[in-house]
């Protein structure tokens, strides 16, 4: 591992300690003075004020200058830490995080996509951020990094995972109903293992199920739909096939049976028929192929 | 109380018709100038030229039509404060826009 490399955590934590320390000293000082004065000069002990001093130029100068110096130090220290967060080390691994309501999907330079962000331990990683809809926030507390994922804007973060492990990614910018469920993972693995994973031939996942999962990963379907019957933002896939669904089509209510045709339509043109009790928010999966739709439909069929 | 007696001063000043018409004529001339200036190819300078003339025009309107010239100093101070505020809002926003 490159010893010169300062991780983002190492850049931020000392700033925290410095500012916290300074603030704690100030706070304790003020509190102590207040308590001392209140106890010493309470009316029962000090029935009349013993001074009517109403100002002191010297004191004012001192307590203007002192905080000024202190905050200048805080500013400078905070700013230099921030610069570390913004300066991506050379040769960082390039990855892309795509955020959509309400799921993350990650892409590598060789075209590989994944729903977890696999990274090699000890190597800097740059994550380029892209949003498909509203503003999201890419937040990994373990690395002290955060950056908003703004549609139409090129933002990025970088980090280096010093130890193998799995770290939470939160969506920090409020983005609607599924905001708090928009949780991803950074999986830091040893470099050799990572390279192997990255280059492993696009393992032809077996049949429809494999392809369906690919779709789910790419379009973030499982951010809104569950496969186990639990309620999310969209209807669950479990037991959907063959059931009767109440929908609104073109302003009129009707009941349909969830057959192949209906499911295909729901996936390709979600706005055509809106299921009762759900908001019309499902995005049309752009560039989905017919084979993929069919695979998803088959997959849903299998979920009894 | 200084600004308490102020309702005596200031507001009684009357601007003559002649003066007002003179201001109006200058405003029209300035309008012609802006249109002319922006026809010439000045590049980005055009924006600044047009804005400068607009500032002169509004200065005239404020000073004479709106009687600012004859009001107490307080009015000019607070007007300045308002303008500076707007300028600062625009200026600081550009720290983001220009360096992004």
């Amino acid at each position: 591992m490159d010893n010169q490399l300062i991780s983002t955590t190492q850049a931020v934590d000392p700033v925290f300690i410095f500012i916290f320390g300074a603030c704690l000293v100030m706070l304790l000082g003020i509190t102590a003075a207040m308590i001392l004065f209140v106890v010493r000069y309470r009316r029962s002990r000090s029935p009349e004020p013993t001074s009517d001093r109403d100002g002191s130029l010297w004191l004012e100068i001192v307590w203007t200058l002192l905080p000024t110096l202190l905050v200048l130090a805080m500013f400078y220290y905070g700013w230099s830490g921030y610069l570390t967060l913004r300066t991506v080390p050379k040769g960082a691994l390039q990855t892309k995080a795509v955020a959509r309501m309400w799921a993350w999907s990650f892409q590598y330079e060789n075209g590989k996509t994944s729903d977890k962000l696999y990274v090699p331990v000890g190597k800097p990683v740059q994550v380029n951020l892209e949003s498909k809809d509203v503003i999201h926030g890419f937040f990994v507390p373990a690395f002290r990094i955060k950056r908003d994922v703004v549609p139409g804007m090129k933002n990025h973060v970088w980090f280096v995972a010093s130890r193998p492990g799995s770290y939470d990614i939160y969506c920090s910018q409020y983005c609607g109903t599924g905001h708090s469920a928009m949780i991803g993972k950074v999986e830091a693995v040893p470099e050799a293992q990572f390279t192997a994973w990255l280059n492993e031939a696009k393992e032809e996942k077996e049949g429809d199920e494999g392809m369906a999962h690919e779709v789910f990963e790419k379009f973030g379907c499982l951010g809104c739909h569950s496969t186990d019957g639990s309620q999310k933002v969209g209807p669950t896939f479990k037991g959907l096939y063959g059931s009767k669904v109440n929908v609104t089509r073109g302003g009129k209510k009707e009941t349909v049976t969830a057959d192949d045709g209906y499911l295909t339509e729901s996936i390709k043109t979600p706005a055509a028929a809106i299921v009762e009790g759900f908001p019309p928010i499902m995005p049309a999966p752009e560039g989905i192929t017919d084979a993929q739709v069919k695979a998803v439909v088959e997959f849903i069929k299998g979920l009894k | 109380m200084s600004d308490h007696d102020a309702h005596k001063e200031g507001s009684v000043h009357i601007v003559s018709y002649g003066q007002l018409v003179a201001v109006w004529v200058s405003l029209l001339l300035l309008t012609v100038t802006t249109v002319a200036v922006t026809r010439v190819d000045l590049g980005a300078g055009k924006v600044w030229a047009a804005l400068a003339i607009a500032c002169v025009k509004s200065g005239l309107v404020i000073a004479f039509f709106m009687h600012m010239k004859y009001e107490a100093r307080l009015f000019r101070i607070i007007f300045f404060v308002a303008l500076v505020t707007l300028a600062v809002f625009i200026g600081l926003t550009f720290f983001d826009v220009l360096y992004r």
Partner: protein
Amino acid sequence: MSHLLPRDDVGAKLGMWLFLFTELLLFGGLFILYAVYLARYPHEFSAGGHELNVVMGTTNTVVLLTSSLLAAMAVTAIKTGKPKSTVALLLGTIGCAGIFLVIKYFEWSAKFAHGIYPGSPRLVHGPPGESVFFSLYFLTTGLHGIHVVVGGALLTWIGTKVGKGSLTAENNVMLENGTLYWHLVDLVWIFIFPLYYLIL
């Protein structure tokens, strides 16, 4: 109770000016956006400016300047004790407001006819800056138009008071404040005109 407070004309004008500052900053928000987007899309803004009708814009500038003159003269008139000419001058101002709005109406309808209105297919599919330019144009001139209407109504109401004789040479701060509002409408236009019509 208010009627027991001594009349305070300077105070009334001070209050009016403070209110005008808020109006200034209200438009200021739009001007901030204008400045930012102009810096980002100079070409689209210039192309958009070309589509606006300079003749109508210039005419409207002259109309507003004239209305402002008449309003200022109305103040002089009432202070010199001529309520009749005051009313006449105010009518002139309001007339100019009407002309302004009519011209504006034709301008907007011409734009609509060319498929330029907020959210129109042409703007949605056009180059990015174009939609921004025209949206700002419609918002700014629309807001300004509302101010013209409000100002006109205000001056009409004040005019009737002058007519009824409740505003006089000694007691005219309401008229002064009304015209101050009107001049603000003019001031804003003084900036709208070069920024939208002339930045070619």
